[in-house]
């Protein structure tokens, strides 16, 4: 199968060392076992898709990866060193950035103010310590330009951007602040066709800069468009990992839905799903 597609250019080195490795992660909430042994890793410059139906444990897993939850069992290593995140800030400092579905964007604020929210560069000292507005504006416009979005101006309110563009601001922000692993939680789920392709193109760009991307989705076609590897979660367990070109959309779909039942359903829907 040809590996070069609209949203996928160049293959990452398969022997590159993973940036983050999650081994046999378990997470229990009281008597509920949300994750029952999930292993996952991300190499630099690859897009590793995490697929699964609703309730498969995708959200719990990425929250563990981004430091929101502590795993009940299992190990997380970064560059071969065991890590123990106690807060999302720890994960961020280790270079793991997460773009959650709500994007952490404020519509009434300008792109620049959103871009640097919580991490404003300052100049001057004492009572005259102030934000370095010029640098901030230039950086925001520049980073957005790199992602293929031309702002009217750095003071354009985020509320005037489309859903896809907001997603891109969030991704650009994470990359700008030194993310090595970028976790995207269903970035395309609420978007139209055109905006989805913008976001997929952004993922491809980011991947080529050497960032490891974790792309969570339940849309097989979106995943196959950009992904290098595909891991399917079902009922809190990994069903397996496939490499680009080794798996067909139908096989992936079946794995996500748990096989059998899906085959029956598909029969009744005559292959429309």
């Amino acid at each position, binding site marked *: 199968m040809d590996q070069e597609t*609209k949203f996928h*250019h160049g293959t990452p080195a398969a022997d590159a060392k993973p940036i983050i490795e999650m081994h046999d992660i378990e997470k229990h909430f009281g008597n509920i076992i949300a994750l029952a042994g999930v292993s996952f890793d991300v190499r630099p410059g690859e897009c590793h898709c995490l697929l699964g139906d609703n309730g498969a444990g995708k959200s719990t897993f990425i929250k563990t990866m981004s430091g929101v939850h502590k795993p009940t069992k299992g190990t997380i290593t970064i560059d071969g060193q065991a890590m123990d995140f106690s807060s*999302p*800030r720890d994960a*961020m400092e280790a270079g793991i950035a997460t773009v*959650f579905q*709500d*994007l*952490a*964007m*404020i*519509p*009434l*604020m300008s792109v620049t*103010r959103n871009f*640097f*929210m*919580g*991490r*404003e560069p*300052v100049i001057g000292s004492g009572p005259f*310590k*102030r*934000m370095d*507005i010029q640098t901030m504006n230039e950086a925001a416009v520049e980073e957005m*330009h*790199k*992602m*293929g979005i*031309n702002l*009217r101006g750095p003071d354009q*309110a985020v*509320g*005037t*951007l489309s859903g896809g563009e907001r997603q891109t601001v969030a991704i650009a922000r994470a990359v700008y602040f030194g993310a090595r692993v970028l976790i995207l939680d269903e970035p395309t789920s609420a978007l139209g066709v055109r905006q989805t392709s913008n976001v997929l*193109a952004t993922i491809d760009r980011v991947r080529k800069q050497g960032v490891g991307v974790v792309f969570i989705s339940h849309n097989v076609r979106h995943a196959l468009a950009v992904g290098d590897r595909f891991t399917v979660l079902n009922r809190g367990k990994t069903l397996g990992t496939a490499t680009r070109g080794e798996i067909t959309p139908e096989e992936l779909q079946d794995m996500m839905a748990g096989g059998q039942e899906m085959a029956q359903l598909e029969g009744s829907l005559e292959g429309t799903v």
Partner: protein
Amino acid sequence: MADTPQIVLDERLKKEGIGARLIKRPELGAIAGVVLVTLFFLITADGAMFTLSGIMNFMTPAAQLGILAIGAAMLMIGGEFDLSIGSMVAFAGLIFGACTVTLGLPLLLAIPLTLAVAAGIGAVNGTIVLKTGLPSFIVTLAFLFILRGASLVGLKLASGGSTQLRGVRDAVEGDWLAPFFSGDAFGPIFAWLAQVGVVETFNNGTPKVPGIPVEILWFILLALIATFVLLRTPQGNWIFASGGDRNAASNSGVPVRKVKISLFMFAAICGALVAIITVMDSGSTDARRGFMKEFEAIIAAVIGGCLLTGGYGSAIGAFFGAIIFGMVTIGLTYTNFDQDWFQVFLGGMLLIAVLFNNYIRKRVTGER
């Protein structure tokens, strides 16, 4: 697809004119309001209103309200309300009166003590709101009554049964800090200006305007500092972010709780500052001080472009909102209109401001 980002301007995006850009500034409405009100009084009012002494006349109440309005505006931008700042003026007045008259403390101690008590109550307000997640409207409404009642009781205790505490002027007489909080500033300059004929004089040769009332200077200073903080510091960005979307802000590493509690403290301190200035001016304090001022301050902030939902607004806007207030209250006495039109006017301004702000918000966020 090419590696370089394409430079394509969206053909559906029209170029924005200066007018469209200006209209997105939150303070525009208030500035337009000042212009309209000025024109109105230029036509209807006696010419004395716009002489130097007339301007000082309406700027003094404007400044007293404006100091509160700036505190209220900052808090509103941060996404919260404080309905207790009016009662805070009475309560801080009591504390200040008790410190100076009853305890006989010098201003060097009395002023920081008053401000600290106010800040403490502001912090209590803020902590309750943030810990419980209750709307600040209801929590501070409770404090509106608590503080008003406590001022009454406290005044009776301090004055031996009366609801007024007198003798503040004698108590602070000669204190070196007093000129910073009472009377008029730049007296010698005005005396000189009167000598050379720039400032009008009374028949006995003293200038009609002895100086700039200190509250006006405090008002301008606070407006400038608040604007600098909002527009040019990381803390300003955090205030907008906390008010715009609390979750998004804290997910991005903004210390939302700290920001909001500090804003509650700042609003309370503004109330205490107004108390100190007005109590020193009148020489006494009473339980009705600051009555209804919380609403007037919020109205001035809204006229100044603050959204009730938070995350948007400006301190400069509140500054002009308060000036509109001062001009209308005092200005009506220079006209033939019944002064009681004031309240009608006030409600009308508020309604227009809210409609205007709503329209602006839709423009800014691109909602339709």
